[in-house]
């Protein structure tokens, strides 16, 4: 994968995430973690190579099929990407709304999830009034509200305290337990260690699979 005429960001990468697996994606800044996630959530197109999601070759996927595939992928962005003109509740309710569900069918799910991530008393607030940690929790709630088949998260615990980080990890584990494939890009070595989950380590655009994480080997 390369942008324009620049050097390749990702090269010679080949891996498979089995359905229902849970992986961490580690690597130093600029190693290509975010680019790899973008390729999976269809925000970028690979300049060469082949990516297959849900058994579908993305190069052969028609434009009309992309939204349906995106609806099966929940993404927690590092920079949150919340809609600042919408309330916390409206932001969290975005995915079911776009999927065409009637408000009455998902209102209570949204309220329960927001309460679960600790935003029960902030549902009517605007994102500009939230702290960094609250924005992160809202971004997570928005990503998981539709119980996606794949959950991608870019530094999802970067702005929360340890207790909330563990709580978020438990949420991801719970989603994984009910079938979601989870891939989390993280610098949080403590969290990766505690999870005991396998790691994909990216370094200078190349990938290594580490069954058991060893912080000594991680940059």
């Amino acid at each position: 994968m390369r942008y324009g005429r620049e050097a390749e960001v990702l090269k010679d990468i080949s891996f498979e995430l089995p359905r229902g697996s849970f992986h961490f994606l580690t690597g130093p800044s600029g190693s290509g973690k975010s680019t790899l996630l973008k390729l999976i959530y269809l925000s970028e197109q690979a300049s060469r190579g082949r990516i297959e999601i849900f058994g579908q070759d993305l190069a052969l996927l028609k434009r009309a099929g992309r939204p349906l595939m995106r609806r099966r992928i929940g993404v927690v962005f590092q920079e949150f990407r919340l809609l600042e003109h919408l309330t916390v509740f409206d932001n969290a309710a975005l995915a079911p709304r776009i999927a065409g569900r009637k408000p009455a069918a998902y209102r209570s799910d949204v309220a329960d999830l927001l309460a679960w991530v600790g935003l029960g008393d902030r549902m009517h607030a605007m994102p500009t009034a939230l702290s960094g940690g609250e924005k992160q929790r809202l971004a997570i709630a928005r990503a998981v509200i539709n119980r996606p088949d794949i959950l991608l998260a870019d530094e999802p615990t970067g702005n929360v305290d340890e207790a909330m980080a563990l709580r978020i990890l438990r949420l991801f584990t719970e989603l994984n337990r009910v079938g979601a494939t989870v891939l989390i890009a993280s610098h949080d070595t403590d969290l990766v260690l505690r999870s005991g989950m396998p790691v994909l380590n990216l370094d200078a655009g190349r990938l290594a699979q580490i069954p058991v994480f060893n912080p000594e080997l991680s940059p």
Partner: protein
Amino acid sequence: MSLAFDANRWWPSPLLPKGDGRDWALLFVVAALSFLAGLAAVGALAGERAAAGWRSELVGSATIVVRAKGTDSADEEAARAAEVVAGVKGVAEARALDAAKADALIAPWIGAGALPPDLPTPRLVAVDLDRKAPASGADLTRALSAAGIDADVDDHSRWSKQIMRAGASIEAAGAGLFVLILAVLGAVVAFATRQGLVARRDVVEALHLAGATDGFIARLFQARFARSAAQAGLAGALLAVLAAVLLKAMSAGDEQLTALLPIAWRDLAAPAPFPILAALVAAVTARITAIAALAERP
């Protein structure tokens, strides 16, 4: 004190942020276009009515110029001509104008009383034709020739054709202006849609990544611009009606202005369809523009 949030009463908010400065500029342009379109429509209707009135006057009448051989017999010859043509089918009334009236008609060109009294001047016969089945100029000429009267018939057809052409030109100009205004409206909305997609790139991207189709996103812009165009179009149309009422009031005491622009009360309804038309044009343009712009994204 803060009100508790009741999730059961929650209803989705608009996905696009409410209007900003760019929207106000767009509203102003659409209102101005609507105002111009409304005035053009009222003007075209009034102009067409004026042309129709003039055409009706001309088609419904004819003038006969009787060339008298001597001043003594001129009035008699004109009276005879009037009598002859009055009997022609398709003529409602014919009356000979006396010497004083004939002189009055040419007075603007040569001055009053400028002609010597013994100079034989042509006499005129004014003919009112049957509006439903008017006699032709040829019918009148034939009748006058048969009676041995030396006269020329002017059935105003030359002027009538010119006025019909003028009327058609007014209609074509009005229609052309209307189409031009709609095209400008479409161009403005297309520009505003592209600007909106750029300015709200974060929203568009968030919606895309959450699984929104191009059609879903395009519908947001389509609805936004259709509503704005309808509101601004209504404001412009109301201003056009107000301006037309003022013009009508101003022309009430001025015969020349009334003859040139005879605005009728029913003409004031002419701007009414524009807000709906503006909304339709804005919706279609915004949708086409948004779909084309979104197709450039991955």
